[in-house]
């Protein structure tokens, strides 16, 4: 199965207030892939995700989606190209209900989600159906993470950017989320790029991994490599 490149970056530089964080990142993601971005704390994983969705402007280089440079496209228009961003720390809208949070996600494709689509999302995340009228800010971290994922599913994105979904949530929910993401990828073909430090989640989801360090991609490895403790120490430990 050969498929097209959906997203790539070419020599991408970006950072905060003139201080560079990414210093020439090159990645290539093909349609239908699940790719992990791994690396120690503070190496620039979230900075990469923010640069891809456009919350952070690049300093040099390019972000290319479906073959088109999108460097000058504002974040909301990048989202509308079919990119669903799930931020680190989930950032649900705390004083909107679960249902209202989901409705915001419709802005990605600008279409009302059908009843079937909403039911199918609820079948992956039944807790959200149960709590549909509850303010999102009152839910647990794991529930908010599920909401943040469901929120982008409302807009049927072609690409999901998932930043550390396992952070601060219970191991059994981490496993659930990994399983659901793989299922979604199989059933809808959605492409997934995710940042993760949790070995179990990486091994459960990723088809391949980019290792990022000091603002560059230093390695590309297969998830099985992480069965080896030395490799884990080399790529992930502090």
């Amino acid at each position, binding site marked *: 199965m050969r498929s097209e490149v959906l997203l790539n970056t070419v020599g991408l530089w970006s950072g905060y207030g003139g201080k560079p964080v990414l210093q020439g990142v090159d990645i290539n993601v093909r349609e239908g892939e699940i790719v992990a971005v791994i690396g120690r704390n503070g190496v620039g994983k979230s900075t990469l995700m923010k640069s891809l969705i456009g919350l952070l402007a690049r300093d040099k280089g390019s972000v290319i989606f479906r073959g088109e440079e999108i460097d000058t496209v504002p974040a909301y228009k990048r*989202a509308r190209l079919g990119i669903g961003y799930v931020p680190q720390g989930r950032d649900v809208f705390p004083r909107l209900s679960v249902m209202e949070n989901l409705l*915001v996600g419709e802005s990605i494709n600008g279409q009302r989600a059908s009843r079937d689509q909403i039911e199918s999302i609820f079948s992956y995340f039944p807790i959200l159906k149960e709590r549909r009228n509850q303010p999102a800010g009152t839910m647990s971290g794991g529930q908010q993470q599920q909401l943040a994922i469901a929120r982008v599913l409302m807009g049927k994105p072609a690409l999901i950017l998932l930043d550390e979904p396992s952070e601060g949530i219970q191991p059994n929910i981490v496993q659930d989320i990994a399983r659901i993401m793989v299922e979604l990828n199989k059933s809808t073909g959605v492409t997934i790029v995710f940042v993760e430090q949790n070995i179990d989640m990486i091994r459960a989801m990723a088809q391949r991994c980019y290792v990022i360090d000091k603002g560059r991609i230093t390695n590309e490895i297969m998830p099985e490599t992480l069965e080896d403790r030395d490799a884990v120490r080399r790529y992930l430990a502090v």
Partner: protein
Amino acid sequence: MTVYYTLFTFLYQTGDAFAFLVLSACGLAIIFGMMGVINLAHGEFIMCGAYVCAASARAGLPLPLAVLAGALAAGAAGMLIERIVIRPLYDRPLDTIVATWGVSMIVTQSTLILLGSTMPGTGTPFGSFAVGPYSYSIYRVVLMGAALATLGLLWLGFTRTRFGVLARATIQVPHIAQALGVNTGLVYSLTFGLGAALAGLAGGLYAPTMTLVPTMGSAFVVEAFVTVVVGGADIFLGTAPAALVLGIIKAALTSWQGQLAGQIGLLVAVIIVIRILPRGISGWILRERA
């Protein structure tokens, strides 16, 4: 019997004060609560609504449509000013205060130069009704209804429409709303326009009851600010209850000691509230809930 008449007078005056406070304040409250912008040109949007309403009514438009025209004109002016003046200053709250103050002075002075020191108004419609020995303006009762209807429609608009949900999402976590495909710039522009249109609505509704002069906005602005400060950032949890409490205070003091006492009472109420509830009534309610 007289006790009932007195009670009715008190209710009428409270309702009248409540309506004035709600209508004066809701545009200001929306712009402050949703965007964090303290709009010192609020009074000029009110004046714009009043002038356009009076001019359209005198040109033969029925009053309800004339009021609507005033609101729309102020809303359009608001969106224009948001684009030109406010947008570049979103990250600089103090600068927006100065800039909107500047807009306020420019508009007041240009109106004075272009249209003169006063503008012919339209008479108050509907006449009056009597309860016991006292007579009351029917139009004032219409204004009370308009205040309640405005609150009701705003509530529906912000909770039941797509725009309302996106606007609330945008104030809560703007960058995430944007990353999910929401054109937050447009949301801000429309929100500011809505706030200005509500100011224009207040101007239009009160145009038949007052003398139209370029500085007429200042009659509303003090009470609008008092209400927003007491209420805090949330229009439904803040502005409405604040207007009710302040309406009662104002009506009580006015009937006891006259207009001036009513005004002073409001200012004293603000000072007390700032001491006890620095984030206003809605800040307090939201904290109790959390």
